[in-house]
């Protein structure tokens, strides 16, 4: 009986009186990739990011963010078309991140927190576990911004690396997320 009570006490913070808070990704948020080629570096940016972060009463956070692969713009139409071919965007049109982490509510706002999200990134039809360090700036209980950077392997996701003048880009692709979040959107 005491053991059951102790277990119940451990579970209590997960069922807070206020319930979860959903923060939606707002316009102006970006996802960017950076590719390195022997001759130059390429950055493609997507401004068509959709996503949500669910703040759980127990201090946990669930995150789901995705963007259409064809929404990334590197400033060169030919190169973007080449990227769509390499990533088979017609078959796998989205890149999606689902992750969880611990983000206890701060004692006061504004506040800054560093969170390492553990989750899965689905890209090119392949889902792999990832760890994403994120810096979260909590402006208010219903408003936040987050930035994070993640390096993935193109080979690991089965993407045939694009090439220019018969030289392939490096295997590492750096994904940077800059998200603005707010409740009620």
């Amino acid at each position, binding site marked *: 009986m005491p053991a059951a009570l102790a277990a119940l006490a451990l579970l209590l913070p997960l069922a807070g009186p206020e319930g979860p808070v959903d923060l939606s990704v707002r316009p102006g948020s970006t996802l960017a990739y950076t590719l390195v080629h022997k001759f130059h570096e390429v950055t493609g940016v997507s401004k068509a990011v959709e996503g949500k972060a669910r703040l759980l009463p127990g201090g946990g956070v669930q995150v789901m963010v995705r963007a259409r692969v064809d929404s990334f713009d590197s400033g*060169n139409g030919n190169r973007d078309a080449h990227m769509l071919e390499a990533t088979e965007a*017609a*078959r796998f049109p989205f890149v999606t991140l689902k992750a969880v982490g611990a983000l206890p509510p701060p004692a006061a706002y504004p506040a800054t927190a560093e969170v390492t999200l553990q989750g899965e990134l689905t890209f090119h039809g392949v889902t792999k576990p990832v*760890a994403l360090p994120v810096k979260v700036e909590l402006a208010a209980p219903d408003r936040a911004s987050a930035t994070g950077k993640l390096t993935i392997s193109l080979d690991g996701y089965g993407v045939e690396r694009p090439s*220019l*003048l*018969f030289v392939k880009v490096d295997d590492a692709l750096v994904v940077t997320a800059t998200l603005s979040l707010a409740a009620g959107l």
Partner: protein
Amino acid sequence: MRLATLLLVALAAPPALADEPAATPPAPGDASATAPAPPPAPDLTPRAPAAPLDFDLLPAEPAAAARPDPAFERLVARRRLMLKVHQGVGIATWASLAATAVVGQLQLDDRFRGGGDTGRYRTPHQVLVATSSTLFLSAGLLALLAPVPYEKRGGRLDTATLHKVSMGVATAGMLAQIVLGMAARRQAGSLRERDLATVHQGLGYATLGAFTVGAAVLFF
């Protein structure tokens, strides 16, 4: 009995204690003993998340998206092959154009600038002109005829547009050079031949320059 009790006590002792280093007092002047410990680096090892990921915060993706379309994929493969060959032919075209300009300069010097008008560079120049023109045309056709399965963003000034504009200038230069070269030969022996040949020479370098710019912009 006493031995068994000792053994039980030893087994019951927390194992972590055995692994902890003995606490030693900090040495005098040891700054590290008083400095705050640096924050632990985040553990970036990808692992299965502690909590399940069976939540969906966004509407489901279109289900039909993952269906392969063989006809579409054939177009993509054809485009990739054609553009890969285009790059190879483009590199060969640049080398051939550079050689044509060099040999053309030698031909001009031989004929008009005290070279003795031996004519020894004429045939090599003509062969290089034919080679460059063929390669140039092939590279252009490979790019122009490649299918475009994925719609491209257009109507803006980017490096792909600069590449096309530069190659358009180079194409005009190639055509003008061929006409001028033939016109100069028709005026052989006259003062006009030299004038036409000089313009032809300038256009040759301009064409090579436009082609070089068109290739170089791809690195930005």
